């Protein structure tokens, strides 16, 4: 190669641009194919967060489509509901008389979620559940006689993108409410937009607590709910007294451990070690040695995603696996546990507000419908998607009670509202959080989750007075 002339370097630039664009196009085309298979073609305006995307190729194949409730499902010939979904698919409305079919201007429900980036893993169950939200609320008569439509927007696990996605939902899609399941960082970035536009914002992901705003409700699990009843139970079950707390270094693990310390000491136990590792930690050899030297009876790991998998798979070889030191985890969910494998996870206990194994008629029907619709190997319905579903039902109930979608009126109707959903009995508290059941699952030798303990109507230890 010789010294590049101006024109040659320009042509190279074009070649590179074309090459990257081609790759992006291929990725996008493949993505469309894949995502179109389980879902019916979209007929409402999808939330095309074009402006909000960090890079087009990453976002292009996202299933940001919303569906009309009466769309038949061509993939499911054996389900009897397929022919008339709008009359038979509401699990909580089994009575034969049919509610009046909703009509008129739709109520728009925005869903802000992570469908790409590190938390993108949790996206697919949520976009699946968006279909059920439309179907079930419309089958029950809609909101004030109007049908509902869902609009999905991806925050790419990035607060800056999340803020743009919120802007898209509010300004372009004109949503009446935003349901969120994403990081606290995205919530902090997106909240001011909801406040300025006076749009109700229901944050449904488990989080560290402490949120309080006139337009917000927070229906996810907070640490006081996940830990207060479960820590004493865990110590009783295992006979362990001393704990090691190992978390990623950000606000949620730190807040969880602050509370865990109180509950452990109140139960007569002791914290013998508390360590934080940066997000994205790959090597846990030195941390494993610290834990082994601490003499702890129990480990409370608040690690997320790949960090959790790296820690647990490495811990076994360092002699501090679940067999040696039992775990109580507050975020290990099916994907992460599945990747660790049953040899690593068998015996671990996990405390969350929902598992698909919750044994109630309502939930069993809901879960079997989920897997019938989206396939047996669909990304499993889990606590994040379940809380989004509950948030939508809570909003619909409150808006129906208020007789309007006006934010202040619906917010007033939200307080004290209680429902029974596949999750269990839930109720909005005066602190704008959710009183909800907490379940403890124990991982079995085959990797399945068995609910070994449940606590009903656990109150969050939160205070909020936005006025």
């Amino acid at each position: 190669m010789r010294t590049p002339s101006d024109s040659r370097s320009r042509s190279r630039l074009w070649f590179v641009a074309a090459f990257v664009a081609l790759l992006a196009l291929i990725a996008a085309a493949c993505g469309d194919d894949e995502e179109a298979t389980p879902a019916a073609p979209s007929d409402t305006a999808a939330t095309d967060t074009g402006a909000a995307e960090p890079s087009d190729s990453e976002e292009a194949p996202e299933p940001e489509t919303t569906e009309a409730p009466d769309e038949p499902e061509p993939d499911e010939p054996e389900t009897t509901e397929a022919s008339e979904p709008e009359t038979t698919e509401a699990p909580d409305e089994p009575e034969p008389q049919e509610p009046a079919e909703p009509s008129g201007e739709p109520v728009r429900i925005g869903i802000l979620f992570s469908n790409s980036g590190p938390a993108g893993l949790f996206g697919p169950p949520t976009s699946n559940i968006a279909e059920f939200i439309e179907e079930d609320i419309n089958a029950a008569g809609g909101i004030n006689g109007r049908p509902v439509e869902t609009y999905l927007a991806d925050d790419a696990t990035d607060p800056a993108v999340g803020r743009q996605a919120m802007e898209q939902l509010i300004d372009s899609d004109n949503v009446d409410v935003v349901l969120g399941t994403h990081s606290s960082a995205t919530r902090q970035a997106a909240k001011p937009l909801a406040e300025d536009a006076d749009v109700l914002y229901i944050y449904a992901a488990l989080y560290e607590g402490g949120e309080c705003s006139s337009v917000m409700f927070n229906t996810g699990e907070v640490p006081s709910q996940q830990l207060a009843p479960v820590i004493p139970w865990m110590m009783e079950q295992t006979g362990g007294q001393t704990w090691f707390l190992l978390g990623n270094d950000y606000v949620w693990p730190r807040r969880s451990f602050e509370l865990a310390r109180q509950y452990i000491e109140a139960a007569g136990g002791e914290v013998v070690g508390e360590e934080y590792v940066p997000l994205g930690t790959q090597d846990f050899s030195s941390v494993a040695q610290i834990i082994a030297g601490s003499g702890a009876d129990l480990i409370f790991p608040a690690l997320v995603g790949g960090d959790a998998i790296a820690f647990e798979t490495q811990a076994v070889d360092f002699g501090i696996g679940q067999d040696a030191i039992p775990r109580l985890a507050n975020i290990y969910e099916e994907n992460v546990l599945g990747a660790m494998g049953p040899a690593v996870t068998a015996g671990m206990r996990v405390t969350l507000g929902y598992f698909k194994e919750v044994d109630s008629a309502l939930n069993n029907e809901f879960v079997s419908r989920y897997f019938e619709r989206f396939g047996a190997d669909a990304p499993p319905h889990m606590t994040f998607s379940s809380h989004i579903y509950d948030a939508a039902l809570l909003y619909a109930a409150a808006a129906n009670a208020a007789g309007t979608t006006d934010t202040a009126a619906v917010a007033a109707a939200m307080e004290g509202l209680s429902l029974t959903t596949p999750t269990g009995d839930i109720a909005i508290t005066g602190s704008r959080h959710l009183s909800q059941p907490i379940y403890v699952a124990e991982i079995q030798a085959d990797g399945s989750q068995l609910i070994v303990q449940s606590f009903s109507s656990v109150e969050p230890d939160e205070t909020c007075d936005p006025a």
Partner: protein
Amino acid sequence: MDALTLELLNGASLFAILAIVALGLGIVFGLMGVINLAHGEFVMLGAYVAYVVHTVGLNHWLSVPLAAVVLFVLGVVIEVGLIRRIHRQPELTILATFGLSVCLRQVAELVFSKDFRSVPNPVPGATEAFGVLFPTYRYLLIAIAAVVVAATLLAFTRSRFGLVVRAIVADRDLAESAGIRTGMTNLCAFGVGAATAGIAGALVAPLGAVEPQAGLAYLPGAFLVVIVGGYNRLWGVAAGALTVAAVQTGVIHFYDAVWAQIASLALAVLVLQFRRPTPAGAVA
């Protein structure tokens, strides 16, 4: 005493991981002046090779040479299709390889889905040596990484190929005038860089999650090693990995993992302050 032995072994395994992950980045940066932001994705793809080898029921160790071959081929294709056209303009290589990294992540997601995958440890458990128990897999990891890194560095410094490489790095135009085929050398350098990333991916796969985003976690560490070790000597990769591993392990032992990360980054800043500035690609 036992605690010290264990920390030395921990440091050695961290050194091995850092060195093998950073090796390809150092080669491509040092020899070609190309800042390859897709290097982490090469590591991620190497881990997926190990995952595929596991799913079809073959022995894990087979994935190490296989990942090297697969990533070498991919590296050659990328060099011909993309890097060759822009490698003299560092700002373009940054943009192009960033775009490439996004594409590779997306392709991995389409092929393997977003789900976390894992590769079981082929030699579970620990071995007793030097009076302590230490995971068997990590002993093997240290050995293999040491062999691969040493062999690659020797090939690039002591062989006739290494002489050609140094001639090109010293003065590309003069080398071309002397009849050296620089294009072919670049092709080899990029292919070998990708192949070592593939080996790294296959080796670390049993230690953590295999997922499309996995490469993002490896890239900062690899850059840290290259910055600390210096890109003007290939042996700098080994020196950089050793320094970073020592700092990390030491600080975690005496303070904690968060301070260890801060200390390694501070180390990079310090090193840059006191190093004589050399242009990228100026390998001695």
